């Protein structure tokens, strides 16, 4: 308590003094006046002066105190100049220094009382002014702006805390450097002439310049306000001060604003700001073009009533503005008028009221508008297109249909409604085959299901009925995809082939009857020729007998042609008969090779028959296939002299292959040879007779016996035709 009172008394003494204690001269007391004079703060007791007065000036004080301590006598010095630094501001103080030893009763020195009497001089600060200066320094030091001082040589001698932070300096020492180091070099070079002229003429310069961060080199855009400091006595410039504000946040905001403006200005939609006085303060480029404004200035002087006919402006005044007043927003369609052409057109308008955030009063109306003409034109085009589509589908002789990705009907046209006797509404959502006659439905569903699964072209024949008429239909369809390529169902057409079917049936019947009727006279002719041949041969007239034999061979050709026509008819009407029974396959092959071999003197037929055993099939029909393959091999290898026939058992199937060394088949035509009426075309082939039915009939026979037929061939090198049938037979006989 006493100590505190003593301390307070010491502080009230107007003469600055310091009390040092002990041989290390540790500070015991620094009174308030001394703190102000030396620019040091409280709480320094117990520390050496050198630690407290780091910036200089302490040497003279310590030296004086030390001498007093060691000599035990008072030390007096006059006009001592102390170079001090307060918060990095350098200053000089002139004092009369009086260091007096403090002694114990035994005469030993325990401390030093050092009094500092300030004396004024031309080169030092005035004591009374310094208090004000100290406050100013505190203000400058703590300013949020960068404040710095540069000497006449262009070196920075002071930078406040904000400045150090901005520049990334760790201490004030880093800041004592030429001012050029503070700026982005290019900026500095660019602006230097302007700054120099301005400083010389006006004593100040203000503008934007990029500082350079000491550590990262990052540019820092700042607003720099620099001015010359002059000596109040001589009026000569003694340095330069600068107050700088970091513009980065402002710059970022400015950029954002510019972006936003660019966006708005270049938006395809019309954007505007309407002031309470009924004039637009802004209409973007799209809006100006749309409404016929020639300049931004014209926007500012055109009342919105000019943008509507009187009739349509009523909507604005009676509906839009009151709604904005009441609800703060309005949206809807309105008619506007082009300023120059007076053309009226619809727009969609979305307006919002903009209020003053403080008063809540409406300050403007922001509007976003879209020209409705393209949209309406597109709608009309779509509507026209739909109408046209409906008219076409109604007028089309074919039925049209669509289904979704779940095989459910999504559309059928009038024709299909008529053929099935069911209106569209009753068919929507139903399975695609629901109107197919029950007798054909399972087959139609199976076929559609398979095609649908593989997303392939659909083709199917079936019957439908509307209650009065049964029609034969060919239905076709293709997978349907949306604009993104997603599968969305099938779309297709149905054609009425009832007449075609009837004609086909008539043709089949005719061919059947005709070929049947042909066989009877042919049988008679054969009988006559054979008996005639026998008679002539018996009478020794071999020449005539041979001629009649040739006649019989030609009759056989005719019989084969009739047989083929009849077979094709039967295949198409599903009446091809099979009388399956067990027979020795190789035995049959040997017989046929022998029979056919007799017809060609040129070719030798070489057999390679592995054990096949018995098979269960129609011997006649399978024999017909073998004969067809061997006779073809002979026919299409006119320049070769041998045919190879192979048989073997493989995977419980009997396989037969006939290899020739003839003209071969072009690769692209290989799959067509099993088609009805197909004949290999080409120069050489013109000389090959036939109806083009043999391989078709053979393939149908093999298929019906549960087997398969194929060919491998090389054009100019020959072909190998093969078929295989189950050795155990195919019980599915017709």
């Amino acid at each position, binding site marked *: 308590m006493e100590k505190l009172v003593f301390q307070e008394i010491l502080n009230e003494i107007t003469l600055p003094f310091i009390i040092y204690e002990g041989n290390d001269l540790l500070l015991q007391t620094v009174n308030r006046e001394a703190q102000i004079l030396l620019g040091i703060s409280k709480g320094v007791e117990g520390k050496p002066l050198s630690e407290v007065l780091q910036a200089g000036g302490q040497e003279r004080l310590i030296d004086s105190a030390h001498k007093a301590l060691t000599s035990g006598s008072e030390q007096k010095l006059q006009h001592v100049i102390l170079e001090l630094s307060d918060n990095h501001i350098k200053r000089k103080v002139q004092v009369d220094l009086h260091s007096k030893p403090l002694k114990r009763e035994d005469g030993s020195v325990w401390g030093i009382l050092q009094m500092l009497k300030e004396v004024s001089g031309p080169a030092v600060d005035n004591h009374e002014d310094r208090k004000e200066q100290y406050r100013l320094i505190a203000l400058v030091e703590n300013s949020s702006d960068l404040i710095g001082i540069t000497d006449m040589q262009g070196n920075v001698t002071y930078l406040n805390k904000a400045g150090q932070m901005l520049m990334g300096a760790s201490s004030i020492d880093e800041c004592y450097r030429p001012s050029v180091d503070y700026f982005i070099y290019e900026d500095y070079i660019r602006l230097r002439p302007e700054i120099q002229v301005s400083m010389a003429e006006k004593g100040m310069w203000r503008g934007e310049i990029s500082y350079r961060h000491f550590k990262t080199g990052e540019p820092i855009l700042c607003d720099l306000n620099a001015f010359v400091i002059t000596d109040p006595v001589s009026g000569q410039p003694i340095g330069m001060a600068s107050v700088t504000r970091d513009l980065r946040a402002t710059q970022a905001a400015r950029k954002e604003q510019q972006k936003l403006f660019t966006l708005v200005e270049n938006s395809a939609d019309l954007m505007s700001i309407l002031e309470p006085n009924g004039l637009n303060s802004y209409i973007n480029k799209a809006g100006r073009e749309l409404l016929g404004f020639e300049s931004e200035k014209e926007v500012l002087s055109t009342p919105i009533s000019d943008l509507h006919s009187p009739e349509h402006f009523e909507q604005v005044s009676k509906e839009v503005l009151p709604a904005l007043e009441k609800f703060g927003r309005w949206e809807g369609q309105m008619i506007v008028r082009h300023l120059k052409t007076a053309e009226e057109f619809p727009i969609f308008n979305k307006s919002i009221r903009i209020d003053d955030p403080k008063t809540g009063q409406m300050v403007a109306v922001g509007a976003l508008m879209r020209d409705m003409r393209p949209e309406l034109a597109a709608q009309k085009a779509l509507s026209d297109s739909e109408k046209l589509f409906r008219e076409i589908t109604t007028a089309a002789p074919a039925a049209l249909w669509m289904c979704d990705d779940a095989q459910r009907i999504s559309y059928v046209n009038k024709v299909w409604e008529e053929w099935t006797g069911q209106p569209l509404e009753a068919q929507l959502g139903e399975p695609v085959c629901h109107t197919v006659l029950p007798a054909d439905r399972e087959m139609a569903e199976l076929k559609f299901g398979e095609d649908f699964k593989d997303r392939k072209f659909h083709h199917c024949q079936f019957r439908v009925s509307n209650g009065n008429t049964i029609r034969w239909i060919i239905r076709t369809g293709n997978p349907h995809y949306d604009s993104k390529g997603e599968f969305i169902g099938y779309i297709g057409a149905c054609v009425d082939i009832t007449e075609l079917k009837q004609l086909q049936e008539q043709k089949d019947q005719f061919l059947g009857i005709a070929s049947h009727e042909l066989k009877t006279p042919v049988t008679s002719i*054969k*009988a*006559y020729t054979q*008996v005639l041949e*026998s008679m002539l041969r018996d009478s020794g007239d071999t020449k005539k007998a041979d001629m009649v034999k040739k006649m019989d061979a030609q*009759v056989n050709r005719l019989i084969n042609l009739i047989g083929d026509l009849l077979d094709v008819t*039967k295949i198409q009407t599903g009446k091809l008969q099979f009388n399956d029974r067990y027979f020795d396959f190789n035995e049959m092959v040997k017989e046929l090779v022998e029979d056919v071999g007799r017809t060609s003197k040129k070719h030798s037929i070489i057999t390679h028959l592995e054990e096949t055993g018995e098979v269960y099939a129609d011997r006649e029909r399978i024999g017909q296939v073998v004969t067809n393959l061997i006779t073809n091999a002979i026919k299409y290898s006119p320049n070769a002299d041998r045919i190879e026939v192979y048989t073997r058992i493989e995977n419980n199937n009997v396989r037969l292959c006939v290899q020739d060394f003839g003209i071969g088949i072009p690769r692209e035509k290989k799959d067509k040879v099993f088609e009805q009426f197909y004949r290999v075309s080409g120069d050489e082939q013109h000389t090959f007779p036939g109806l083009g039915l043999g391989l078709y009939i053979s393939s149908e026979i093999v298929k019906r016996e549960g087997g398969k037929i194929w060919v491998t061939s090389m054009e100019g090198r020959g072909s190998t035709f093969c078929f295989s049938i189950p050795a155990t037979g195919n019980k599915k006989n017709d």
Partner: protein
Amino acid sequence: MNNTTAKIMIADDDPGILDSVGIMLEYRGYEVLPSSKNTLNQVQAELPDLLLLDIWMSGQDGIEICKALKGNERTREMPVLMISASRHIENSAFDAGADDFLAKPFEMEQLFEKIEYLLKK
């Protein structure tokens, strides 16, 4: 050239077949009995050694005639060789009791082979 004395009746509604096949059979030494419009009665009256029977005849049904002959004790053993331009009818012929079947048009040698085989049986 066995059974040259055998009597063969030809039942066909086509005069060409009757004539040509008849000539051939006669040339081979058989006795040929041309059929009338009532084949069944004629067969039962004349009892040939073999009947060459067409299936589809105008006014007569070969299948029914065959069935009737095979159902009658007197004619049951008489061989019936059925002929037709329709090969698929073969099964029906056998079902009716025919001893063999030959599809038109046929080789005369085939016909002779079958006739000789049936006559031997």
